[in-house]
């Protein structure tokens, strides 16, 4: 109860700090990796304190692979883009906008943060998500049903 309340208070601040770190990677300490892991740690902390089932739906954990893919594809797109403007691969200075390196870097930082956060949060929920279903399906003797081994039917002794 104390943990849930504390985490609920702290999580928005920590997540905001994570997003701030990502977007300010060019001018202060931080960047994509740092912001991504801070956001992932916040979501994992929420899942830890409030229970995975509640957090799973709120954060659309099933959509996380799409987020990870969009990070990689976004990075590749920003890297391949300069070819269209006469530059080389990942030559960020070739974009015809003012301060091209800064804005292209910030886009890449967001992509990095998306992939890193999606990978870490997805890993945590893949590890923990189904333990409640396993617990619920334990037989009366307390054994966990093993994969592929047929358990005793409930109606056998009827």
């Amino acid at each position, binding site marked *: 109860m104390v943990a849930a309340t504390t985490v609920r208070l702290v999580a928005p601040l920590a997540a905001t700090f994570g997003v701030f770190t990502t977007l300010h990677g060019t001018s202060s300490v931080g*960047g994509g990796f740092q912001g991504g892991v801070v956001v992932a740690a916040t979501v994992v902390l929420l899942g830890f304190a409030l229970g995975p089932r509640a957090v799973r739906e709120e954060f659309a954990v099933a959509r996380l692979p799409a987020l990870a893919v969009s990070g990689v594809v976004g990075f590749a797109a920003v890297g391949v883009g300069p070819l269209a403007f006469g530059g080389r691969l990942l030559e960020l200075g070739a974009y015809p906008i003012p301060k091209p390196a800064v804005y292209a870097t910030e886009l890449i930082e967001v992509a990095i943060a998306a992939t890193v956060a999606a990978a870490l949060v997805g890993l945590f929920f893949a590890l923990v998500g189904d333990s409640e279903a396993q617990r619920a399906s334990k037989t009366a003797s307390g054994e966990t049903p093993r994969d592929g081994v047929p358990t005793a039917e409930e109606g056998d002794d009827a």
Partner: protein
Amino acid sequence: MGDALLGATLALALLAAVTVVALADPPAFAVAFGAYGLALATAWAVLRAPDVALTEAAVGAGVTTALLLAVLRRTDAFGVVAEARTRLRVRPATALTAAGTALALGATVPALPAFGDPETPPFRRVVPFYLADAPRLGIDNVVTAILVVYRGFDTFGEIAVVFAAGVAAAVVLRGVVA
């Protein structure tokens, strides 16, 4: 003063590492592992690498502890692990091998250049170029500039590896579900 602080944080990290091995109860050694991550993050901060310190603090002290406990809960191994670790005994041969390897590696440390020595090859040519060119591009954080602008291809490889690792782990874990 700086060396004393670094020595203190590394000693704290060593103490936390020994505590992780010595404790038997899974939540206890998970928390000790988080303390180890925090001591390492402090060491990075003392060595003036705040980006690495931030990442180490979030991953080592936050996510790793949660993953450790999640795995133990998933495999229902709290009791098994606690019992196995209570019966843990270190064999003299193991301790000697570990100490010998640590000493052998430690003997190579004096051969490394001094920390931040400006005469080493990276500091003589490449680093002054990065330090001069990054503000010209408008990026104040040189570490980010190196990661994305100057060595962006390596970072792209890292992202591809993170993505592949996450997907592979998720696929394997999905196959394990009953």
